[in-house]
């Protein structure tokens, strides 16, 4: 069997991930995390915070909770079912950083934790800054031309 034939044979027979089921769970878990975020925003506003500050504080709270659950060894068990539901919100970013930090700890705080902490989450930071910069340049050019 030629390489291409074999690749097609393997792809045709491999059991696919249950996309519909995964999407439903992602919707439920992701939605619940957003509701939780909204609850935090409402609580913080009720306690006298400005809306913008309350929003940022709610994000920080979710980051903290995801990091804590990762450290307790619970997050990956939830994420196994939730999939994109826990990955896409800010919780996924928090988990990617914390889990890598825990793993790299045995290699020391400089070359381990320090050097490797962003090895999964790093691309998100790099391309977020890059796309932000590109957007900024385009925005500046447009406003400079059309005022």
């Amino acid at each position, binding site marked *: 069997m030629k*390489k291409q034939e*074999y690749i097609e*044979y393997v792809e045709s*027979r491999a059991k696919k*991930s249950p996309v519909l089921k995964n999407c439903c769970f992602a919707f439920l878990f992701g939605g619940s995390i957003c509701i939780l975020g909204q609850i935090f925003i409402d609580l913080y506003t009720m306690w006298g915070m400005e809306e913008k500050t309350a929003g940022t504080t709610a994000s920080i709270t979710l980051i903290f909770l995801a990091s804590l659950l*990762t450290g307790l060894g619970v*997050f990956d068990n939830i994420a196994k079912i939730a999939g994109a539901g826990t*990955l896409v919100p800010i919780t996924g970013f928090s*988990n990617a950083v914390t889990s890598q930090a825990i*793993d790299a700890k045995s290699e020391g705080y400089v070359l381990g934790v320090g050097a490797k902490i962003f090895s999964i989450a790093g691309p998100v930071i790099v391309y977020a800054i890059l796309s932000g910069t590109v957007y900024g340049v385009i925005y500046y050019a447009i406003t400079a031309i059309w005022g």
Partner: protein
Amino acid sequence: MKNPIITLLNPPKISATYSVVGHKEAEGPLGNLFNEVCDNDKFEKETWEQAESEMQLRAIKGAIKSAGLQETEIDLILAGDLLNQCVGSNYALSSIDLPFVGLYGACSTCALGLAIGSCLYNGKILDTCICATSSHFCSSERQFRFPLEYGGQRTPTSQWTTTGAGAFALGKEGTVKITEILFGKAIDKGITDISNMGAAMAPSAIDTLKRYFQNSSHSPDYFDLIVTGDLGYEGSEILKDLLLGEGVDIRKNHVDCGLMIFDREGQDAHAGGSGCGCSAVVMACDIIPNLEKGILKDVLFVGTGALMSPISVFQGSSIPAISHLVHLSRG
């Protein structure tokens, strides 16, 4: 053309086997057959890498003791694992005062060690040797995939690295002998998906088994079992299907170590176990004892290994694989 099968005229015997596993393996279908279990997978060590070395060391010492040998009687230790530069074995063997050769054949290392050890015994280069391999879920996951606590979803074709170490003492005592060897070829059929290693490895197992039956007087029916380790569910199905297309029917007597070690559904192991500890502990705790008891008489053991590195995978290179064959016979 020269027959590629190496027939051993002075075949070594398996004097003893010893298996050490982690908690998940102990909860699996073979749970009560292992010699030693560590409930927290840490083996009283600080890091997962040290835990793997400790596990392999216990397996080696266990095999030497079970064979009734003194360390001074061992001529050579052949050992391997999945970690970069074989550190699992290197650190395990640094606390034993014996000559050691490190091997890398990914999940085929157990069969590779037995094959090389048998050839050396056959050539009267040594009288007694130990062949050992180990893999640890936590150290492998860190090296090949993601951090342990990372929240990701596995695909149905992915395999679960076994936490286990198996060791075999080869020498003149014993009831099970190694009579034939067939070394594998590195075969790359273009699979790039690291989550479908069964599919990457199956073509090499097909090649080795096809070459064996083309050059042997035995047919597949001659063997009580044809054991692959570890193709998992996906790779095993591909192997049986494509071999049948080549006119070799192994559907009746084929088993796979990756399918034996875990309850795939109940233990969330997806396509089954993998790692060079997987076939080692299954052979050590189940297949070889059954040969010793006379439940099995002739077994073909085909160790299958996927030969990628994390870098080669990131660079988009496809995964070559290798399968070494060992013929185990009672009497």
